[in-house]
C-alpha cells in the first residue's frame, strides 16, 4: 500500500545500479559511434576537450547535486546561485574595489552561504527542499538582477581568463578542476563515512538517525557544498566568457538534475553514484554537441534531451520494479 510518488517504491539495489550504469555507458558509446560516423569532426581530441571545457560549469554542480539527491533532497537554486556569485565576483571587484583574488574567494564563499541558507531552512524549519529551493531560485536570481541592475562587468586582467580559456598541458584548465572534483567526490561518496551516511539518510532517514548518524548536520553540509560548487562554477563561467552578467546560469538546475537523474541516481534518494552522474553528464553534453555537428538545430536538441530524460527514468523504474520483490 504505497501512496503514489509520495511514498517511494522499493529502492534500487547497488548490484542493479552497476548494471544501469554499464547499460548507460553502452548506450553512450553506441551513440558516440553513430554520431562520430555521421560527422568526422565529432570524435576528434580537439572537439572532445573543447566539450569538456563547455561542460565543466554544469559538471562541477552536478557532483554535489548527486549528494543532495542521494539524501532524497533536491536543489533547484543552483542556477541562480551561479548568477548571484558571478555578480558578486564582478561587483566586489569593480565596484567595491576588492582585489580580484579576494573577489573570487568572496564569490565562492557567497555561494557556500547561499547553500547554507537552503540547508538551514530545510533541516531546521523542515521546509521541503523542492519548495525551499524554488523560493531561493527566485530570491537569489532576484538579488543578482537587482544588485547588478543587469549591468555587466568586463575588462578583467588577462591572468583571470586562464581558468576559463587557458590550457594546462594541452588540456583546458577547468577540465583539470572538474576531473579533480570528480575524483574527490567519487572517493568521498564511495569510501568515506560521509558518503555512506548519505545513502543511509536517503534510504531510511529514521534508521540513520536511530543509528546515531548526525542526519541534519550532514544535510546542511550537502546543501552548503552544492552552493559552494555553484560559486566555483560561477568563477569558471565568468572566466570563460570574460564578462559577468546577471543572467548567467539560468536553467542550469535543469541541466544538472537531468545529468544526475540520467546517471541513474534515484530521485527518491538512497542510490546513485558519481560515476553514473559523470556518464550522464558526458552523455548529455556529447549528445547536444554531436546532434549539433550532425546538423540538428539547438531547439530540436532540447527535445531529444527531455525525451531521453523521461525515457531513462521510465526504464530505470521498470527495471527496478522487476528486480525488487514487491513492497
Amino acid at each position: 500500500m504505497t501512496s503514489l510518488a509520495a511514498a517511494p517504491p522499493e529502492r534500487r539495489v547497488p548490484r542493479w545500479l552497476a548494471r544501469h550504469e554499464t547499460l548507460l555507458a553502452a548506450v553512450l558509446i553506441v551513440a558516440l559511434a553513430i554520431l562520430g560516423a555521421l560527422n568526422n569532426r565529432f570524435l576528434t581530441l580537439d572537439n572532445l576537450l573543447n566539450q569538456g571545457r563547455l561542460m565543466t560549469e554544469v559538471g562541477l554542480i552536478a557532483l554535489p547535486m548527486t549528494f543532495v539527491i542521494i539524501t532524497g533532497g533536491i536543489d533547484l537554486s543552483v542556477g541562480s546561485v551561479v548568477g548571484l556569485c558571478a555578480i558578486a565576483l564582478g561587483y566586489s571587484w569593480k565596484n567595491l574595489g576588492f582585489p580580484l583574488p579576494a573577489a573570487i574567494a568572496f564569490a565562492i564563499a557567497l555561494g557556500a552561504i547561499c547553500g547554507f541558507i537552503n540547508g538551514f531552512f530545510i533541516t531546521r524549519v523542515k521546509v521541503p527542499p523542492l519548495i525551499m529551493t524554488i523560493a531561493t531560485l527566485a530570491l537569489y536570481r532576484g538579488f543578482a538582477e537587482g544588485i547588478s541592475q543587469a549591468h555587466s562587468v568586463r575588462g578583467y586582467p588577462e591572468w583571470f581568463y586562464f581558468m576559463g580559456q587557458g590550457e594546462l598541458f594541452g588540456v583546458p584548465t577547468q577540465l583539470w578542476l572538474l576531473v579533480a572534483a570528480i575524483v574527490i567526490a567519487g572517493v568521498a561518496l564511495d569510501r568515506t563515512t560521509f558518503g555512506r551516511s548519505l545513502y543511509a539518510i536517503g534510504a531510511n532517514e529514521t534508521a540513520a538517525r536511530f543509528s546515531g548518524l548526525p542526519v541534519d548536520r550532514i544535510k546542511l553540509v550537502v546543501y552548503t557544498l552544492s552552493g559552494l560548487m555553484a560559486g566555483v562554477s560561477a568563477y569558471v563561467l565568468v572566466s570563460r566568457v570574460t564578462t559577468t552578467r546577471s543572467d548567467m546560469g539560468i536553467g542550469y538546475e535543469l541541466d544538472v538534475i537531468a545529468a544526475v537523474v540520467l546517471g541513474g541516481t534515484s530521485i527518491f534518494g538512497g542510490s546513485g553514484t558519481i560515476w553514473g552522474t559523470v556518464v550522464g553528464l558526458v552523455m548529455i553534453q556529447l549528445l547536444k554537441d554531436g546532434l549539433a555537428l550532425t546538423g540538428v538545430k539547438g531547439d530540436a536538441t532540447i527535445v531529444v534531451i527531455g525525451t531521453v530524460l523521461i525515457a531513462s527514468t521510465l526504464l530505470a523504474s521498470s527495471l527496478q520494479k522487476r528486480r525488487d520483490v514487491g513492497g
Partner: protein
Amino acid sequence: MSAIAMETRAAPRASLLRRLSSQEVLLAIAIVVLALVVGAINPRFLATRNLSDILLGNAYVAVAAIGMSMVIISGNIDISVGALIGVLATISGSMAVAGYSIALAWLVPVLVGIAVMALQGAVIAYLRIPAIVVTLGMLSILKGGLISVTGGKWITDLPDSFHLADIELFDILPMPVLIMVGATILAALWMRYTAQGRAIYATGGNPEAARLCGISPQVTVVMVFALHGLFAGIAALLFATQLKVIQSTVPPNLELTIITAAVVGGVSILGGVGTVIGSTLAAILIAEIASALVFVSISPYWIRAVQGGLILLTVVADIVRRQRRVAGDSR
C-alpha cells in the same frame, strides 16, 4: 503571524468564510495596504484604469495558478506549465490566422492542454515517476518543440474577434478579469462542494485513508492534472488574446510566477491544504507589486527577489501554523 495562529485555534462555521480566514485575508489586507501606500506616493496608482490594468495584464497567471494549486494540494508539482501555455497560445493563434472559426481556435488549445497534462498525470500516478522529473522533461520537450515547429515566427494579423481582452464590461472590466474571477469562484466552489473536489484534499492529505474511503489516489491525480491542463488552456487563451501579436515562444519564468502564486496563496507545500481563492489573490498581489515597483521607480529587476522572499515567508508561516496545530492536537 498571530492571525495565522488564531485560524488554527478558532473553528467557526464551516463555510467558504472559514476557509478564507487565514492566508486569503492576509493577502487581501496586503493587497489593500500596498495599494494605499503606493497610492499615497502616487495617487494615479489608485485610478480604476490602473487597477483594472494590473488585473488585465496578469489574469492569465491567476487562472493558471488555480490549476497549479490543485496540483500542489494533491501532493505534486508541475514545472512544465509555462512552456505549455506558450505552446497552447501558439496553437490558438495559428488556428485563428489559418481561418478556423474563433470558437475552434479557443476550444482546441484547451483540449490539447487537458490531454497533455492528463498524460503527465497518468505517467506520474501509474508509472510512479516523480512529478518533478516528468514535468521537467516535458518542459524541454514543449519548449524545444515549439521553436522547431514555428521557427519562432511571430503570429500577426490576428482577427479582431479573436481578442477576448477587447471585450469589456461597463468599459472597465475586461473579459480576462471576469474569466479570472469566474474561474476562481467556480473552482473554489467545486473543490469545496463536490466529492471529486474533496478527493483532491483527501489524496494530498492522507492517500492511505483516501484509499480506504474508496478514493483512488491514481485516478484523482490524473483528474487533477487534467483540470490543471484545462486552466492552463484558459490561461493560454488569455495570454494569446491579450496582444495583437503572439511571440510563439515560451514566456520566460512563467512557471515560476505561477508556482509562486499558488504557494503564496496558502497552498500548503506539504499537500492537503489551501484554496484557489488564495492563489488568485496572490497572483494579484504579485502583479500589483510589479506595477508598484514602477510607480515608485524601483527597477523591475527586483520583482524576482520579492517573489522569492514571498514564497519563503509564506512557506515558513505555513509550517509554523502546522506545528501549532500539531501542538494543539496533542492536548
